[in-house]
């Protein structure tokens, strides 16, 4: 910007006009997505009382580390992966200003909104790397960002958002490696996979897929000498695999040292296997068809997107498509396999990775900008229609999954609460209860707070009682599972200063409650160590609680 003075003899002076700092497309997409998911989160949590149990539980893990009666890092818990809870730690001190961060678990929503915003940004970045024309790029990014499953899991605080973030990040780095062969990308891909593992254990198949691709491609690219080739491929795989292996090893060792078993997920009484057995979800879950329906509910034309994308990539000999397939497909295959033999529950979210898979493959189908310019013949039109078809296949998903997510038979986990939002008139009993989730638990917390009890006077297993502990303004009054003297307190409540015992009705998962396991008649009659003080039948979809007061002796 120059403004030359009109006066003779004066030197031209550059006077820059004030301009706003350039906002890059990518930054705009991130911030838009983040704001959108946060807005939805506010609506869900504060407007509709839709709080995910698992999300609140993760907030609980973080809360126990800092604000429980026995604050220590190991309270983060070893049954589930630690990273989502660790990321919430810096937010928790703000609960002094915004108690809802903990009481309603909004800290989890913030973390998931940021992660999903990041995932959207990364998807845009990958589409950018593929050099797709701008309109297509924006459309595909939008189709990813507004997918109902993505919106919901960006807003609801579950760890799927962070998991997707790391998965897509590793896809991006692997793609960069496949294109340039630089060591840098191998290292970062390994780190991203390690991060994914610390979010969810399902990253394991993704890591193995990535290792396989790196080993094979490195071997193919190697020099003539066969032995050297093999060894180079091994070394390259080790470079990607080492950070990943470190994440697995560190977590397993820490778990072994603190709780005595390296893989608590499987061994713990609170873990996945135990819950599956207790709820007898195994049998109803063991149908491959059900899994397939769920996959197709999320991305009905998945096959089309994969086929088109794969074909285009194969024709251009673009190895980068292998990155997407190697990282995302194993996750889905594992989920399908685990469903088919009843290892995991029939939750729709286990197949969430299918969404970035379809979007990115559609990105490959669209192809590089400028490829079809000037080709107005049959081939050109065929290519264009393939592009449109690929994009449509992703667009259809938006409508399809909106329908699926409000149908409890396809989405058993979130179906009830979401369908409550969409039904006009009649609401079922299940929907009513889903809408009133945690209301009773908050009431219990308020009641206990009102008693002004000293430290460590209420014994409760935070496995099911987390909502009570989190809603309380005085979390230190509870003796919970992560406290190092929990086992002692169960064995000898009065001896450890416990005055009250909170116990859930033995139904479903509540049979895994530590107090129920130690005193099977506790709920019914106090097990001879306490008398009933108060009863709290649950108006929501949680357990009924009873509060017992310890009798002397």
């Amino acid at each position: 910007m120059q403004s030359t003075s009109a006066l003779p003899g004066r030197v031209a002076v550059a006077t820059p006009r004030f301009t706003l700092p350039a906002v890059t497309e990518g930054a705009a997409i991130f911030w838009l997505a983040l704001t959108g998911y946060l807005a939805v989160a506010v609506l869900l949590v504060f407007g509709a009382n839709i709080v995910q149990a698992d999300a609140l539980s993760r907030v609980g893990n973080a809360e126990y580390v800092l604000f429980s009666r026995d604050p220590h890092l190991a309270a983060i818990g070893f049954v589930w992966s630690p990273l989502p809870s660790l990321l919430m730690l810096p937010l928790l001190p703000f609960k002094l200003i915004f108690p809802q961060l903990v009481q309603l678990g909004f800290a989890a929503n913030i973390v998931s909104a940021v992660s999903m915003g990041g995932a959207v940004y990364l998807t845009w970045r990958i589409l950018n790397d593929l050099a797709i024309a701008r309109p297509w790029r924006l459309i595909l990014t939008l189709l990813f960002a507004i997918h109902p499953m993505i919106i919901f899991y960006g807003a609801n605080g579950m760890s799927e958002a962070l998991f997707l973030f790391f998965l897509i990040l590793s896809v991006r780095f692997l793609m960069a490696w496949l294109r340039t062969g630089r060591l840098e990308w191998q290292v970062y891909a390994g780190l991203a996979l390690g991060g994914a593992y610390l979010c969810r254990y399902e990253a394991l198949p993704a890591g193995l897929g990535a290792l396989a691709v790196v080993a094979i491609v490195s071997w193919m690219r190697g020099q003539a000498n066969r032995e050297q080739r093999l060894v180079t491929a091994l070394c390259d795989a080790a470079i990607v695999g080492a950070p990943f292996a470190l994440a697995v090893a560190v977590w397993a060792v820490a778990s072994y040292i603190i709780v005595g078993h390296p893989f608590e997920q499987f061994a713990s009484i609170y873990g996945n296997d135990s819950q599956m057995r207790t709820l007898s979800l195994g049998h109803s879950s063991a149908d491959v068809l059900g899994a397939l329906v769920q996959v197709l509910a999320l991305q009905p034309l998945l096959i089309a997107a994969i086929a088109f994308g794969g074909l285009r990539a194969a024709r251009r000999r673009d190895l980068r498509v292998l990155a997407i397939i190697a990282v995302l497909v194993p996750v889905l295959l594992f989920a399908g396999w685990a469903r088919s033999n009843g290892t995991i529950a029939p939750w729709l979210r286990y197949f969430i990775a299918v969404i970035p898979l379809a979007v990115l493959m559609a990105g490959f189908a669209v192809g590089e900008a400028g490829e079809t310019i000037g080709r107005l013949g049959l081939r050109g039109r065929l290519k264009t229609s393939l592009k449109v078809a690929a994009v449509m296949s992703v667009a259809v998903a938006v409508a399809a999954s909106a329908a699926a997510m409000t149908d409890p038979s396809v989405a058993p986990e979130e179906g009830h609460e979401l369908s409550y939002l969409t039904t006009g008139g009649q609401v079922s009993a299940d929907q009513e209860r889903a809408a009133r989730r945690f209301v009773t638990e908050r009431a219990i917390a308020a009641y206990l707070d009102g008693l002004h009890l000293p430290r460590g006077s209420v014994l409760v297993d935070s496995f099911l009682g987390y909502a009570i502990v989190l809603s309380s303004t005085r979390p230190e009054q509870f003796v919970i599972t992560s406290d190092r003297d929990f086992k002692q307190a169960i064995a000898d409540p009065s001896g450890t200063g416990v005055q009250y015992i909170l116990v859930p009705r033995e139904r479903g998962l509540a049979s895994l409650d530590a107090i129920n396991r130690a005193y099977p008649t506790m709920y019914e009659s106090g097990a001879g160590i306490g008398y009933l003080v108060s009863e709290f039948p649950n108006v929501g979809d949680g357990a009924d609680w009873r509060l017992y007061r310890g009798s002397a002796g």
Partner: protein
Amino acid sequence: MMVSHRVRERRTRRLSYVEPDLVASRLLNRGQSTVLPVLAIIVGCTLVAAPLQTVLAFNALATGLYVLAFIYGIYLVQRSLAQPGMIRVGDALARALADADLPICTILVPAYREPEVIARVIRSLESLEYPRDRLDIKILLEEDDHVTIEAARRARPEPHIELLEIPLGLPRTKPRACNYALRFARGELVTIFDVEDRPDPLQIRRAVAAFQRVDRSVVCLQAKLSYYNARQNLITRWLTVEYASWFSMLLPALAAQGLPVPLGGTSMYLKRTVLEAIGGWDAFNVTEDADLGIRLHRMGYRTAVLDSTTYEEATSDFVNWIKQRSRWYKGYMQTWLVHSRHPRRLWQELGPTGFLSFHLTIGATPLVPLINPIFWLLTLLWTVGHFPFIEILFPPWLYYPGLLCMVFGNFMIIYANILGARMGGYPDLLGAVLLAPIYWIMMSIAALKALFQLIRVPNFWEKTTHGLDGQPSPEVSLAVD
């Protein structure tokens, strides 16, 4: 050649005249010899008065050092991944330089008591692709080393290879010999090769081409070093991985970031005028190369890394390895003590990042292997039986950083070595990298020996035996004349 003792001294110890305070002839200068005893007394008093606090303070210092070294390591590795930082000169470009444009290059080859290998080095030098009349090769032999002198004469070297006898004097070190020879150097560039070195034949040409490309402040080009007996045994494998990481990854990162670059012992191409101006090598320092690198940086000159490899012989037996490694550590300790003499001047000359980098590269390298065994022992004791005194020594604010450094720091070192091995073209040495913890124990033994030698005989240069690779003299490719 008869020269007076005084002249001889001035030639070999020119640094003492140029920068007396940067010479390692005295381990501690006056300032240091007052400060250190005072510090020792203070520490002694606090140890008696408040033993727990003192030990905690030491623990905090050590943990702080580990954390700094950890961050520094990550920084260097990340920088080297992002940009290679080496200067590449292709074969065609190197050969394209007209002979008439090539400067004279002085090659100094110090040798001492090495009659078996002297013939090899003469053959190896003949493989260099550089015009004979532009080479000024001097084989430096100690005056009283008659065996090697005889063997060298018997090998009948070409006319451009001169056998220079270094008059007797103390300390009997390689840099002293090089300083003496510098007086007779004719070349515009000066480099050193060790007796067993096999340089890349195009190396000098590459250096000349590279000098044309770089900034005027770059007065030194360090070529990469590696080993030709890399796979002889586990020790050579470890050494090769170390060199690969150092020269392919860390050194280029230091050079690219404008941080002080400790030189390697050979294959550094220096501009002779600059070398003379800054006082040559420090005759009293047993790692004169590292010292020179720091001094160059302090005087405002820069070093770059050249992508050309010289193959050396890796020591293959344990005793020799300990001798060599303890000399390296002793030299680093000397270098650190010498350059820390005037901290404010050092800060001004190196800048804040260079200052920090100097302490972490030169100071931490011998220090960390010294304190490692203490922490290994504590970890072992803790694992075996949870002794309460260890818990007292590690309050949470020390425990977590320490744990982080132990787990992630050690992982990072091993991982960086894998990357280094891959970058240097030795992916098959992955197995050796994974056995690194044993190597670390060896390093600690060497560091301890270095500390003892530093106190007792700081200027003693412990010679490494060469010719242990068990190979017959190699068929060296005939030079293109």
